[in-house]
């Protein structure tokens, strides 16, 4: 019953959202049309303005003003992008079928095979972004967890490195991008190398790793005294102490950090892809923005929703992994709902 009610609430709010969006897009469209016409009237003549109005009203796509696209248009554009993705995929397959023999020969001769270099579809861009975030998060993990463990274990190491963490933690992705670009472009001068990809995933990793670093360090330094006593009584060596006691005990906190890292990485990725001219959803958005054709705005909106939905999926994925590895008794750790309920009850009693 309650579930049904909640579903009803969500559907209701989605419908209201679409209605408000539609109204806003209609209003903005009208405004854009009238601005265009007055401009032409001022600069050219009344006749020219009248002609433009007729052209716009006839629905000619090339003469539509650029404004906030309506929900329907975005929906249609999403369909077009999907069709396009199918077409591109087919082209790619056909290409490789044709090249099968040539590539086999090239391989035998020890040469590199010919790859498809056609335009990537929206789907390809999405997959590229997922690849970018994967490498970014992997980099973040491989720096943040070891350093976090060291910081948690050794007070001295923590004191000596903490200023660095504090200063670099709040730096914006744009600055990380610039910094990484300076370094990578100096080192990687080979024209064949994929600098944009390297710059993108390194910037994303460095920008997103801090939550995991801090959480790992806090988790390791606040391991339950009784677990540490077990390791002392058993005289566990340092390796066993870390891997059998300290790390498992701090896994819940580490995963909370990782979850934040993944969502920050995804948020930052789009901006960094834009800046680094790398392919991916960020690159897609930048191209459409610079393209400025009448369908661009709708495509950007589609990308926006895809980005949002992938963000939710990534977060849910991390949450479920977190639930799997957490050893804390679920009945013991209070859910946000039960905390709220308790607050309510105690207030009432007081």
């Amino acid at each position, binding site marked *: 019953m309650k579930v049904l009610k909640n579903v009803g609430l969500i559907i209701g709010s989605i419908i209201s959202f679409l209605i408000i969006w539609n109204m806003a897009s209609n209003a903005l469209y009208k405004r854009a049309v009238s601005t265009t016409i007055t401009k032409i009237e001022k600069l050219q003549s009344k006749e020219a303005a009248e002609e433009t109005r007729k052209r716009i009203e006839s629905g000619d796509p090339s003469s539509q003003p650029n404004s906030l696209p309506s929900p329907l248009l975005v929906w249609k554009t999403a369909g077009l992008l999907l069709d396009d993705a199918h077409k591109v995929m087919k082209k790619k397959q056909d290409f490789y079928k044709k090249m099968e023999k040539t590539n086999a020969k090239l391989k035998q001769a020890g040469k590199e095979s010919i790859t498809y270099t056609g335009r990537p579809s929206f789907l390809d861009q999405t997959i590229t972004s997922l690849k970018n975030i994967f490498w970014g998060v992997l980099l973040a993990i491989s720096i943040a967890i070891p350093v976090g463990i060291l910081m948690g274990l050794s007070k001295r190491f923590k004191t000596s490195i903490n200023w660095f963490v504090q200063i670099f933690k709040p730096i914006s992705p744009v600055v990380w991008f610039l910094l990484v670009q300076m370094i990578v472009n100096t080192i990687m001068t080979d024209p064949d190398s994929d600098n944009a990809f390297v710059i993108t995933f390194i910037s994303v990793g460095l920008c997103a790793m801090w939550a995991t670093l801090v959480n790992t360090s806090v988790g390791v330094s606040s391991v339950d005294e009784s677990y540490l*006593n*077990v390791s002392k009584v*058993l*005289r566990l060596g340092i390796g066993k102490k870390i891997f059998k006691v300290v790390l*498992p005990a701090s*896994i819940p906190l580490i995963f909370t950090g990782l979850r934040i890292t993944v969502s920050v990485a995804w948020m930052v990725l789009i901006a960094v892809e834009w800046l680094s001219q790398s392919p991916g959803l960020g690159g897609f958005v930048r191209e459409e923005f610079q393209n400025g054709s009448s369908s661009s705005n709708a495509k950007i909106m589609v990308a926006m929703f895809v980005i949002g939905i992938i963000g939710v999926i990534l977060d849910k994925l991390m949450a479920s992994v977190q639930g799997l590895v957490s050893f*804390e008794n679920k009945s013991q750790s209070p859910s946000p709902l039960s905390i709220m309920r308790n607050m309510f009850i105690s207030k009432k009693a007081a």
Partner: protein
Amino acid sequence: MAIEEKTLTNLSPERSINTRFTKPDVNRRLEDKKEILVIDQLKKVYPTAKGDYVVLDNLKLSVKQSEFISIIGHSGCGKSTLLTMIAGLNSISGGQISVDNEVVHGAGPDRAVVFQSPSLLPWLSTLDNVMLGVKQVFPHATKKQKLEICKYYLDKVGLGNDFNKKANTLSQGMQQRVGIARAFALKPKVLLLDEPFGMLDSLTRGELQDVLLEVWNKEQITAVMITHDVDESIFLADRVIMMTSGPYAKIGDELVIPFDRPRKRKEILDHPAYYDYRGYLMDFLNH
């Protein structure tokens, strides 16, 4: 025995009326046993904001091989402090503790500890919790031998069917059973227990006392157990140590419990001397 005489002569007249019984002086079972745990002139100072706080001072105690002693005393007198110092988990401010003629430095598996809260590693199964220690203590045993040791003790404490249960899915009582199995599996020289049944309901507590005694009867490992429960201290121990209240706490008195082993709860409760012992201990705590 010097301590004992001194404290007895110091007794107020009022108190000696209540304790008009001859204290048993020796436990025949332990007569030819050597002393394995020797605590001499032990001192513990906690630095606090208001200056140093001397919890224990000039504390002397020795425990014989395969003797089971229990320690009672008022809350906050320093019992846990004493126990964690024996375990090597708490630094020593003065004096020394030796186990089997070796002065104690730091913690080690020769002094296994069972705390009030089970302190199992919750992400491991019951078997792995025991195995972690067994691997440390018997590094050269074969895999099969190690497994057998773990299973033997888990079986002994009544968890023969729960080897693979995650520790955090067990009840408090079950967790404490694993804690007991883990401690015995280390084959320690001294077993240290700090109110191991303090958090349990009285029914489970009784069950676990029986479990503990049963495992202990086989091994007769020297044991030091802190408890708040006078009946528990008599039922389990060969000797009950009474600590004075802090600061500067030390051993105030001690009472030998000469009951034969193996003990049965019913026989102990029906023993004519039981209520004399109980009265003596209650009397100490109430003064």
